[in-house]
């Protein structure tokens, strides 16, 4: 039991010690993952609405593909993007490997299928009368999309929160594309992996608790923003 007790104590110490380094790592994690969610939403939500609105052959197959991609292993995304971003790769000249931008791209790729897929479900969950109501009131397709965003915002928020959770909790991409560089690309998960490797199990577990706390705070903030919106 000492093991857990120690981890809890360290977690408390971490949170209240105001240790700049720990907070910097937490902040890096949050802003990278939020930015990834931002871009994944920018792409995934409109695509989700589009797929939901349109009838086309292969729609069921697309859903199946997206369902499959939701299980994409993070290391695989890391490996694929490494191949693109390495100096030898097609996008090597950008020189973004081992920068936060690389992690953002990786996490974006990771959670795009999630946000896309859940956005389709969200739009599908809208009242069947909604589309006709919009059309009857003279909405263009774009305006109709905006109304859908508003009407299914709860389900969409769930999609974003799910995406954020997957992004901030993943380690494979952050490690592979970020390189776990201290003060630059070290995220909470790569820090946890590092401490685990060093045998600092209690400290690693404490960091894990801090990660959960941070995720909880961000989710609470999103919920709060959503409530203000009503």
């Amino acid at each position, binding site marked *: 039991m000492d093991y857990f007790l120690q981890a809890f104590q360290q977690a408390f110490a971490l949170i209240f010690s105001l240790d700049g380094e720990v907070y910097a790592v937490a902040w890096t994690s949050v*802003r*990278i993952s*939020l*930015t990834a969610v*931002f*871009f994944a939403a920018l792409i995934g939500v409109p695509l989700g609405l589009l797929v939901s609105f349109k009838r086309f052959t292969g729609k069921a197959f697309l859903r199946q593909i997206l369902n499959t991609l939701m299980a994409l292993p993070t290391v695989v995304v890391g490996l694929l993007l490494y191949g693109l971003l*390495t*100096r*030898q790769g097609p996008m*090597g*000249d950008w*020189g973004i*490997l*081992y*920068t*936060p*931008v690389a992690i*953002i791209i990786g996490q974006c790729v990771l959670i795009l299928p999630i946000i896309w897929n859940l956005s389709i479900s969200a739009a599908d969950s809208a009242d069947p009368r909604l589309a006709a109501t919009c059309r009857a009131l003279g909405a263009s397709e774009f305006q109709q999309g905006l109304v859908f965003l508003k009407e299914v915002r709860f389900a969409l928020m769930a999609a974003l929160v799910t995406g954020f959770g997957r992004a901030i909790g993943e380690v494979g991409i952050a490690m592979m594309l970020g*390189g*776990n*560089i*201290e003060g*630059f*690309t070290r995220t909470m998960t790569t820090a946890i992996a*590092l401490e*685990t*490797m*060093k*045998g600092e199990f209690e400290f690693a577990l404490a960091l894990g608790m801090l990660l959960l706390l941070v995720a909880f705070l961000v989710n609470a903030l999103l919920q709060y*923003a959503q409530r*203000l*919106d009503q």
Partner: protein
Amino acid sequence: MKRIQVVLLFLLVAFTLAAPAQERLRLATTTSTENSGLLTVLNPPFEKQYGIKVDVIAVGTGKALRLARNGDVDMVLVHAPEAELKFVNEGYGIDRQPVMHNDFVLLGPPSDPAGVRQADVPSTAMEKIAGSTAGFISRGDDSGTHKKELALWAAAGIEPGGGWYLAAGQGMGAALKISDDKQAYTLADRGTYLAYKDKIDLVVVFQGAEELFNPYHIILVNPGKHPHVKHERAQHYSDFIRSDKGQAIIGGFRVSEEQLFHPDAVQHGE
């Protein structure tokens, strides 16, 4: 209210994406080097003096050299002489220079059932372990430590295998934990051993022989192969860590009040 949220979100995104203004130099090194904490005292004086940030990417030896081969880093600091030479001979690296060495230690249960403590040379120590009831835990992961271990067996003329020999296939920390659980012998780098010292019951049963030394070299990525690398800056770094100042930092670095690294660079002024 909504507008404020949108503005905040965009600020966050812009802030995250904004290209870091500071110049950065990339060093690939092994996890054990990074974990020892040496670089956190060695790099800041350099960064301050040259106004450049050193990004340390800590990975396995094989991967570190692979990154250098791909031109994703500017230099490597590793301890795998054979692989290093291959890397240099293939033209990917230039200017390979000795920096320092640490050493490996043979660990075993305090009771030392195989009597390794009585050995005076590594080959004798290995002979005693081979076939002992306590057994031996190998990293078995093709790491530098694993390669060193295989070299020690070969020097003693032993083909490791059988019930007493177990390959963990994991990192040093995990291998130490397994050895501790089984109260078996194992080979570890001193840095990791010191980090784990308080958590395990194993003790050093053999140390100090030159065969157990673990030399570190710095190698610069060949700008002929990868024109984008910051060769001049990397050269500065190499010069710095091999200068009197750098070497003094290395020699003075302590973990649990023990010296971990021994300066190896041929003295030359800055």
